[in-house]
């Protein structure tokens, strides 16, 4: 289980997330909704260990281990994966280089083969192994590339920060399939999204709503349906 206990996150002097609690269990899909600027991506980046998003209070417990203060690479190696909402382009560095660095020589060819396979199943061509990471990728290609990398690294817990934004209908279907596949592989999933509609075909377990850095509502599918109908300020506008 990935457990967030009473987490507060600062970026610079600003408090962005406050006293947040969440439990992400293996094999479950947790959905996080929230208006723009609610603090969803800040939460995701802080969990992955981004140096600019400081966890000033609370703990992250991954399968019983306190990883709150650990380096990004440590968290990654322990099985935490963040699919970036907007992954940066990495000048001059190809997926091939990245994989060469994290593998030893004897497994290298196998990993390249695996990478090609996952690129194909994510709807990309093998060429992406040899392109500079995210450089000149279209919006949809970036998401698919992240997805391919996710399956390749095979983490235990994944935070998907808007994997479905800016993708076409067919790609959106593919992404939904992939998220269900994660569940069947017993991964713990935190899905950040703006589209309640994609939940129809997703086998979800829990829905949370974040506003101004706080969880304001929790529940099942019905929470998403309410948002779809009335928006985030539904109650106030009545």
């Amino acid at each position: 289980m990935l457990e967030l206990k009473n987490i507060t996150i600062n970026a610079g002097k600003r408090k962005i997330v406050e006293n947040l609690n969440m439990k992400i269990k293996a094999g479950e899909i947790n959905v996080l909704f929230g208006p723009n600027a609610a603090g969803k991506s800040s939460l995701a980046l802080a969990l992955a260990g981004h140096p600019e998003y400081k966890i000033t209070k609370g703990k992250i417990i991954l399968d019983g281990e306190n990883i709150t203060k650990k380096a990004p690479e440590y968290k990654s190696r322990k099985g935490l994966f963040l699919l970036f909402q907007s992954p940066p382009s990495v000048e001059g560095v190809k997926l091939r280089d990245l994989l060469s660095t994290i593998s030893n020589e004897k497994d290298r060819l196998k990993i390249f083969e695996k990478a090609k396979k996952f690129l194909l199943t994510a709807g990309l061509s093998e060429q992406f192994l040899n392109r500079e990471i995210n450089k000149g990728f279209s919006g949809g290609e970036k998401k698919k590339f992240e997805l391919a990398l996710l399956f390749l690294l095979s983490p235990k817990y994944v935070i998907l920060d808007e994997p479905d934004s800016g993708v076409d209908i067919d790609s959106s279907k593919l992404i939904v399939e992939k998220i269900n596949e994660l569940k069947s592989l017993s991964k713990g999933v935190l899905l950040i999204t703006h589209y309640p509609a994609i939940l129809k075909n997703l086998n979800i377990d829990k829905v949370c709503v974040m506003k101004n850095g706080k969880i304001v509502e929790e529940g099942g599918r019905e929470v998403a349906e309410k948002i779809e109908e009335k928006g985030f300020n539904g109650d106030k506008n009545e």
Partner: protein
Amino acid sequence: MVIKMSEPKWVEHIRERGRALLKNGRLKKDEYINLKTFKSKNETMKKIERLEDAPKEVLAAFERLGLSREEQKRLLGITVQVDGNMLLSQVSKILEKKNVTIDSTSEAVKKYPEIKNYFFKLVPYDLNELTAYHAAHWSGGVYIHANGKFQSPINAYFLLLSPLFSQLEHTIVVLEPNSEITVVEGCTAPIPVRNSIHVGINELYVKKNARLNLIKLQNWPSYVHTRPITKIKAEKGTHVNITNIILGGGASTIETPIVELGEEAKINSETLIFSDNNSLINVASYVTAYRDSSTVLLSKTIAGKNSKVIVRDNITAEGKAKGHISCDGLLLSKNAQITSVPSLSSHSPDANLSHEAAIGKLNEESLFYLRSRGLSEKQAETLLIEGFMSPLMKKLPILYRQEVKKIIELKGGM
């Protein structure tokens, strides 16, 4: 049997002029170099026939330049100068058949009278105190004369093994019309050599429609000062490609490829500078460009520790020429400094000149991205530095690519 010939009169004359200029003491002095402390004559190492027979310290120096034993054997034309003297010149018969001559410049001035037309003709010996000193005391260098096309690279290596020595090699490369060759020049000193200088002068003549690929690899420790001057005259319709790799180097180093670019000629010059410790590296490229010529000067600088690098590029258009300067800098430490000074001057309304420069540190977002995929901070930095260099590394022959990477890793910049 070797017949010892004395130097021709015209060389003696140049030496005398050099000495006279030094004596009258009016030439511009170098703020880092006091010439009185150096010697320019040294004990001669016995000349060898094969590189395998070279002394240990020479082979060690080769490792610094990144050439493995196996790779050394494959080279068809190779000369090795240690301090002031030629240690080895291993020139395949194939070169002769292709009308390519390679010799030590010290020998060449005795054997080939035409060299008089090229020696100290692009670089004036009264430029400054160092050029006068060079004129008076020069020794060695290579003379390469090509009247044909030859694919595989011709290699000239200059090693500094003696302390307090001034290495004054004079290299002359002449490409007759329509010729095509690749010259690789490597310069280094193994770690224990202290307080020596390298003042090489290279004069390159690329005649009508000829093509020259020049790869210069310099790997100096931080207590060797270097002042090499490279001057190229590229005639009409020529193509010149220069790849310049400067790794670390003197507490102060100046590298100056100066080019006169003829009509319809093309030059592509790419420089990679990697500095560390307290290096102060000054790199300058000046191109005078004539009608319908095209110039690209591209540099990538990586500065670590307390080093300072100044990159000066200038294109002067004398006619309807195209030119572009691009300078990228990467700072690896808070104390490092990179200065880019691009300048363009145009004497023609039809010239098309531009420049761009960007200096920064490693991109934080990219670093985090790579680390979030499981790379350690060090691994992520190394990948990003390699990524920064990659456009330039791609241009290097594969043989040197891995090696440059290795050298930079050894230098601890990664």
